[in-house]
């Protein structure tokens, strides 16, 4: 956790020191207040006039006001520090994640990265905001107050000490019992959440199997477990408040009780001093107890914050394995892609996902990849934009290893369409002309791209046409529409190389067919890499690579493969009947 604090700048450190001074000042004023009360008490016992009391009262007001002012200033600086701290950390994490390759993202998982950037940072922000005020103030108050009361009578100090110890033992025991169970509660909540989600997602199946009772029973079991654990926690915690009040009340009483004896035993002159001390002592004692309780609160919060800090550090300490290259000039072989003995495996895995793949896609050629799920098709084309780097071998574009290109330059050459079409919150135009490379794309170009991608009809039907807004995650367009827009995004970029990662799956056959035809016409000169499930999609490719468990088991045109590749034949026959294939 302290590692993260290094992100405070010199200026911030100055502010922190200034805050500490302010807090000391505030504590001094807070503790000064009872002193004046003590003065008043003494004055009263001795006999005095109104002006003297008013004078003391005025000092008291001054103390109260000063304390308020310095507390507010501390609050001001604390809010500045904690929010600028969270701003800095958030930015650091965000930039870090942006630099990650798929490998690191996969390692953390996207949802975990999101919580790390949002919730975990908020947790840290909270402990800094509160910590600055409580963590500094509580010990100062405690120590200062203890110093003040120590010489006023050890008997009283001893009683206060006992009270503090009783309270601390109680708080700590409760925490030891309850804290681990709090974690369990979170799990149990996730559990019943899971049951509900399960029931909702499978609602048709649940009903079709008449399994409503079965599901409800399952939920009820989780529900009872959750309720019981929560009951236990809350019942245990319920002891805290009454005992706290009891101890504080009894402490006051004990101070008075002991005080009575002290006064009785003291010499005549001391009696009044002891009496006024007694009245003031209770105020100090309360301060001491409150500051110890505050410290306890910090200790309760600490574990959560330190877990958050750890999770943040994990992200910040991870470096992307993909390093930027420096080639940014163009070569004459526009759009040639070559794989030379490429193998790939995940770093922590022993099994190769791709093994010894070699092929060349020349300018204007279409190369398709087919094979069952898990055969490595998607991984293969992910090597071109360097989402991953090869384990062995080389991927070359225009004769240059992709690792040597400047990433920005490399990406500018590519029109990549992912398996899951991705939309951003913004207009259709924004989505199609997305990215830095799309800054110069005109509206006409956007329209053309959408037309080629067979999206003209539905886009123009939308209320605002090309300016219509797409909701976050593209929830207001259908799967097929999203896919067409994602394809339009690639087209609008006019890339040298198109990469389609199973990007036609949500389209019906007819649209798929029309789109591919238009695309072919439009992209005559561009190289195309296509991953597909349907034979129909790739039947016309210049070259088809058949992958099986990461190995290339066949390469050639549709006709050639039908003759000499068994796996391809199997795939083909499972999709098209024999006579249909022979009709070709």
């Amino acid at each position, binding site marked *: 956790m302290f590692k993260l604090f290094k992100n405070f700048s010199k200026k911030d450190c100055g502010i922190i020191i200034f805050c500490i001074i302010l807090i000391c000042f505030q504590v001094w004023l807070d503790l000064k207040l009872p002193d004046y009360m003590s003065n008043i008490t003494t004055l009263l016992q001795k006999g005095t006039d109104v002006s003297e*009391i008013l004078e003391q009262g005025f000092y008291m*007001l001054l103390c109260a006001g000063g304390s308020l002012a310095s507390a507010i200033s501390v609050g001001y600086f604390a809010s500045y520090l904690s929010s600028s701290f969270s701003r800095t950390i958030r930015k650091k994490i965000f930039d870090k994640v942006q630099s990650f390759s798929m490998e690191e993202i996969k390692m953390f998982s996207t949802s975990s990265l999101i919580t790390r*950037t*949002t919730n975990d940072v908020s947790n840290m922000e909270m402990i800094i905001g509160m910590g600055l005020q409580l963590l500094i103030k509580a010990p100062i108050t405690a120590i200062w107050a203890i110093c003040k009361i120590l010489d006023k009578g050890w008997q009283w100090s001893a009683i206060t000490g006992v009270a503090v110890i009783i309270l601390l033992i109680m708080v700590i025991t409760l925490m030891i019992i309850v804290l681990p169970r709090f974690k369990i509660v979170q799990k149990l909540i996730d559990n019943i959440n899971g049951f509900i989600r399960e029931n909702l997602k499978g609602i048709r199946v*649940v009903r079709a199997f008449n399994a409503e009772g079965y599901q409800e029973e399952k939920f009820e079991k989780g529900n009872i477990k959750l309720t019981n654990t929560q009951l236990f926690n809350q019942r245990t915690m319920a002891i805290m408040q009454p005992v706290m009040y009891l101890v504080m009340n009894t402490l006051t009483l004990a101070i008075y009780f002991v005080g009575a004896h002290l006064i009785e035993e003291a010499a005549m002159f001391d009696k009044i001093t002891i009496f006024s001390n007694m009245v003031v002592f209770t105020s100090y004692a309360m301060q001491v107890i409150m500051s110890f309780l505050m410290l306890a609160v910090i200790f309760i919060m600490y574990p959560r914050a330190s877990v958050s800090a750890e999770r943040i550090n994990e992200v910040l300490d991870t470096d992307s394995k993909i390093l930027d290259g420096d080639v940014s000039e163009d070569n004459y072989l526009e759009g040639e892609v070559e794989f030379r003995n490429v193998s790939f495996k995940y770093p922590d895995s022993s099994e190769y996902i791709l093994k010894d793949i070699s092929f060349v896609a020349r300018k204007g050629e279409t190369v398709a990849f087919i094979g069952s799920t898990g055969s490595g098709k998607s991984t293969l084309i992910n090597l071109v934009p360097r989402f991953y780097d090869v384990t062995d071998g080389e991927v070359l574009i225009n004769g240059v290893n992709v690792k040597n290109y400047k990433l920005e330059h490399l990406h500018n050459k590519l029109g990549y369409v992912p398996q899951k079409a991705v939309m951003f919150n913004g207009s259709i135009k924004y989505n199609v002309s997305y990215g830095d490379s799309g800054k110069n794309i005109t509206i006409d170009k956007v329209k053309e791209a959408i037309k080629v991608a067979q999206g003209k009809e539905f886009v123009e039907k939308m209320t605002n046409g090309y300016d219509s807004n797409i909701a976050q995650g593209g929830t207001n367009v259908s799967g097929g529409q999203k896919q067409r827009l994602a394809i339009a995004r690639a087209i609008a970029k006019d890339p040298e190389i198109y990469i389609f990662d199973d990007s036609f799956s949500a389209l019906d056959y007819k649209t798929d067919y029309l789109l591919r035809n238009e695309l072919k016409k439009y992209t005559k000169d561009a190289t195309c890499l296509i991953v597909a499930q349907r034979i129909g999609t790739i039947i016309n490719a210049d070259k088809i690579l058949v992958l099986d468990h990461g190995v290339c088991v066949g390469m050639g045109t549709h006709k050639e493969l039908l003759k000499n590749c068994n796996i391809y034949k199997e795939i083909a026959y*499972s999709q098209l009947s024999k006579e249909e294939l022979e009709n070709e």
Partner: protein
Amino acid sequence: MSNDEVKSKPRNVGRGPNVAEKPHNFKSAIKKMVFYLKKFLPLIVVSLVLASLSAVLSIIGPNKLSDLTDVITEGIMKGIDFEAVKSISIFLLCLYFTSALFNYIQTLIMTNVANNFAKDLRSRISKKINRLPLKYFDEHSYGDILSRVTNDVDTIGITMHNSLGSLVSAITLFIGSIIMMFVTNWIMAITGILASIIGFVFMSLILSKSQKYFSQRQTELGKLNGHIEEIYSNHNVVKAYNGEKEASEKFDKYNQKVYESNRKSQFLSGMMQPIMGFVGNLSYVAVCVVGSILVMNGDIKFGVIVAFMIYVRLFTNPLSQIAQGMNNLQSTAAAAERVFEFIEEKEMSSEEVIKKRLHKSKVKGNVVFDHVKFGYNSDKIVINDFSCNVKKGQKIAIVGPTGAGKTTMVNLLMKFYEINSGDILIDGESIRELSRENIHDLFIMVLQDTWLFEGSIRDNIKYNKENVTDEEIMDALEVVGVDHFVKSLPKGLDYVLTDNDSISAGQKQLLTIARGMIKDAPFLILDEATSSVDTRTEELVQKAMDKLTEGRTSFIIAHRLSTIKNADLILVMKDGNIIEQGNHKNLMEKNGFYADLYNSQFKK
């Protein structure tokens, strides 16, 4: 089984006085809450009585402490009366103990009530889910329902447990300390109250201002989180299109806004504590000064000051507690409103009057659609006057592009939705005359979104059917061709399926088919696998499905046309309408939409 649909709502993120969510109708929400709390009411009353008793006791305390002080002051000159000191101390000690005890019992009762109430609500929601028509789920997101089960019910539970007791004791303390103050000395009472009121006016001014910044902070944080989510989950496209710079710029903009609203809201909410302290100090000073003057004039004894020093504290603390409590009560009412809204949602029609029952083993397997008319909304009819006669053992295929409403037919057959007019007859009996439970009993349904839950393979396959032996399960697995696969898993049938295991979509599909086999019923509804399954597994799935159709009247939602050429009847759907029907040969000869669709898959 994914988490995607539950976007965590940025509700109650952070700390400090959260923006109180306002209910639409506070009164009716509270009224309803009282209604649902009926069986807990006696306990709640007992607990509230205890809370106020405990508060009353803590008000008497200072009074006695003041007596004690007076005994000591008087004793300074002429020797302290230790008998009196002792008796007052013992009395006070008893008082403190009883007060603490009452307080504890009160909290225990409230804890019980709150948790059992929350449990009750959760159960009601869980049961409700299965009694709502499917239509409800078309219009509401899972996330919405989930947040009602957890967030809203939690809010209700926590506020009931925390606020109700403390609200009552705070009010008692507040009123009690005012009374006691006036009884003890009216001048001091007015002094103390005035000082506090000045402070609180000041505080409420700040509070009302900070509310604005808090809601602003929530909005800004929501925007930032949305952007982060978008960029993180679309990482590959951001990279491939060099969108990083733009994403970074946008992030900075949002981040800055969050920072600003954050700083303001934190500062303002951070001021609460010092101001509270100041109010306390102010009244303390006022009481001390005025009290001292009164003592000097001989109007009061010194003990009164001591008592007032405590009264002032007892008086100021509850004020903020009451404010906080009312705030909490409001968000509870808002949460309760959402929960009750769900619980009171209109349920599916009652089936109590239904007496007829078709027995699974005696059903022949004929289905007649008789002029069926249906629309998800009454003003938008999607099926117009559909009739056909399905004979025992026939195979009916439903085809059409995505989104054409193929599942509508399933929904009607399974009585998930009620038809508007016309009738569907199973073995001559109208489905209106049969209970949903009975109809479901007659159908095997295998859907394309393979629904498996977190549990062992055995539990997933036998599901809610009892007395299924492992042999029967293994037989079913063998028929669909995954017996080897299951045996190869670490614990075989006991292997627990989780969210992110490596079992492929195709294998999951095969497991759901096995589940259908175990169920065994005269009718079958099949939704074919889509492209997410690789073609070779798909072949396995196809074989398994063919096995399943043997001897059953089956309805098949087809995605690929080559597999259904031998169907007895093909229904072609488009935009929710059945536009063509007939067998493959007829339809091809017709050269309409079907023929077009069929040919397009081979076109170059």
